[in-house]
């Protein structure tokens, strides 16, 4: 999509672009270049010396069962967060949309968690499910279920998924609600007159018409789950038990800053950079061509 009218000249636009280009170059492209460079070496933790290893770091990574597992973990985690978030948000949005009045009030009440930092969300959920003092753990215990996400991989995954999804529900809710309210009333009415009852309408009209919103949310949720959940994982499980909750991004951090294995961390950064660059391009092509109903 391009504008019809444009202003002339090339100096002014370059001047306008300069701040962003400079900041991007220094804090994005320079580090990215560094990552690529460093991925060819094994430096010692203190940065006093480094050994050239060619693609050795990548070989090492690909041989590492746990690195490969981190891909799977990331996939499971991201998909779960996305699904939980979207299903709950859609459910709430559909209910709020049915109201003639008051959807604004519910929106205000539901919007809170969006503002809560993932790391703080992690602390809150960790507090509720703490194996010693957690209220939820205690009540679960009363019901005969012994919760222990410190040892149980599935429970750990469940907890980080819920804690990560929690804050996003608000955001998704906003978009779904806006999306629902943007569906022309008359289309719904037409379907009703055509004989479709609530669920039929929802399945055959509402869901398909929401699909642009849904796709958008899908992308942002996956991006969120990929990158912004670091705080949740760091505060709740630290990637454990047994790396069951170690995502790719967490591993970059864990190997780079905890493990002091800068070569491996740089190589992981490079792999992530490539992955995300591909995703960006795909997403971009899609946005440009986005279907608007």
């Amino acid at each position, binding site marked *: 999509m391009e504008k019809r009218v444009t202003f002339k000249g090339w100096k002014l636009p370059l001047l306008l672009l300069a701040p962003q280009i400079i900041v991007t170059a220094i804090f994005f492209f320079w580090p990215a270049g560094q990552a690529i460079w460093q991925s060819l070496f094994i430096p010692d933790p*203190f940065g006093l010396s480094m050994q050239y290893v060619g693609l050795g770091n990548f070989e090492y990574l690909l041989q590492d069962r746990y690195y490969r597992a981190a891909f799977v973990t990331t996939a499971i985690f991201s998909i779960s967060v996305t699904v939980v978030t979207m299903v709950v948000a859609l459910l709430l949005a559909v209910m709020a949309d049915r109201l003639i009045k008051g959807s604004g009030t519910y929106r205000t009440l539901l919007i809170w968690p969006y503002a809560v930092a993932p790391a703080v969300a992690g602390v809150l959920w960790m507090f509720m499910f703490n194996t010693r003092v957690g209220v939820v753990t205690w009540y679960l215990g009363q019901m005969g279920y012994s919760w222990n996400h410190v040892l149980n991989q599935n429970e750990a995954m469940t907890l980080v998924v819920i804690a990560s999804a929690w804050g996003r529900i608000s955001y998704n809710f906003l978009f779904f609600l806006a999306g629902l309210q943007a569906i022309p009333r008359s289309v719904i009415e037409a379907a009703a007159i055509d004989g479709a009852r609530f669920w039929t309408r929802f399945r055959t009209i509402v869901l398909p018409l929401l699909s642009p919103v849904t796709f958008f949310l899908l992308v942002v949720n996956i991006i969120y789950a990929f990158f912004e959940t670091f705080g949740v994982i760091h505060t709740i499980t630290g990637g454990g038990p047994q790396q069951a909750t170690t995502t790719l991004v967490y591993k970059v951090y864990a190997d780079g800053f905890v493990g002091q294995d800068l070569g491996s961390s740089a190589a992981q950064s490079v792999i992530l950079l490539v992955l995300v660059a591909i995703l960006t391009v795909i997403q971009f092509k899609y946005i440009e061509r986005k279907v608007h109903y």
Partner: protein
Amino acid sequence: ATDIQWWHAFSGRLGELLEAQVADFNESQSDYRVIATHKGNYSEALNAGIAAFRAGQQPHLLQVFEVGTATMMGARGAIKPVFEVMEESGLPFDESAYLPAVTGYYTTVDGQMLSFPYNSSTPVMYVNLDKLAEAGIDADVDLTTWSQVDEVLTQLRDAGVSCPFTTSWQSWVHLETLSARHDQPFATQENGFAGFDTELVFNGPVQVAHIEMLGEWARDGRFTYAGRRNEAGANFRAGECAIFTESSAGYAGVKAEADFDFDIRPLPYWDNVEGAPLNTIIGGASVWVMAGKSDDEYRGVAAFLNYLSSPEVQAQWHQDTGYLPITQAAYDLTREQGFYDENPGTEVAVEQMTAQEPTGNSKGLRLGSFDQIRTIIDEELEGVWAGNKTAQQALDTAVERGNPLLRRFEQANR
């Protein structure tokens, strides 16, 4: 006054005691001011220090747990050996005044002190006597061997104790110390003391059997797992758990918080293993002096370290915290003060450390990337506690995953 930055990993009771020492030192003179900063747990503090060094913002002093020793030793250009600092300062410094069992860990082959052994510990066993009584077990029950412990735990469980046994620092206590105490190698090349080309071998039969037993306890409710570091301390101090294997330094917290009678016992061993028991090995942390500071600052550092080694300060620290005394003078002073008599069990740690002459397998560990290797061990052990893996599988995997890290460390430090 010249500021001396000290990054450490102590919070809670230990943090308070450390702050008190710092305040005391700062009051005692006016040339230097030590500023102590809590940098998270041991791993976090170490990483913060390393990262800061890379950024040229390192503190003067960095507390590094024993696990990071090889890493620090490997970073010759990043540290300034303590003996150098002391020599240059001109302050009296006699390496022979320190307990060899402790300082041996932190010295070069020719006996020069690289880091200051600020807080050294060794694992011991804490027993909640009230819980024993609750289960009708005699307070004097013999807990010298793991088989005896096994029986007592069964009784405790059967009597309805929800947490018969727990431990902190599982790898340190139940693999590293276990190996040393039973003269089993943890890694080749004298556990790394003899060179970088070392390989992990802690998947031997003794270790497997021991972990197998813990795994069984975990599954049948005799062992409650609480975390990789000393999270379990909270459970024990709250009176939930009957028996607790933990650093001697757990004493500070237990003494401060426990509202039950407790006992400190030596770490049990397997009497069916030949040569057992040997000494336990050292833990805790030492303080490293970082490179790249001015002479004046190093003089301040020396003054502070000198203050920390004085018999009074050391004795007080030892008595308050349960960390080992690092000088003979402090040890003697403590005995003179009658502390060991008034507080039975407090001498267990020192005795345990010094009872036997260490072998190549019990001198300690000096492995690169050991923090990550511990993480791997922790992960695999958790697999056993959760019932996902057998002990053999877990230890084999840990060895298999850990060795590449040693290779990378070797490569990086060539």
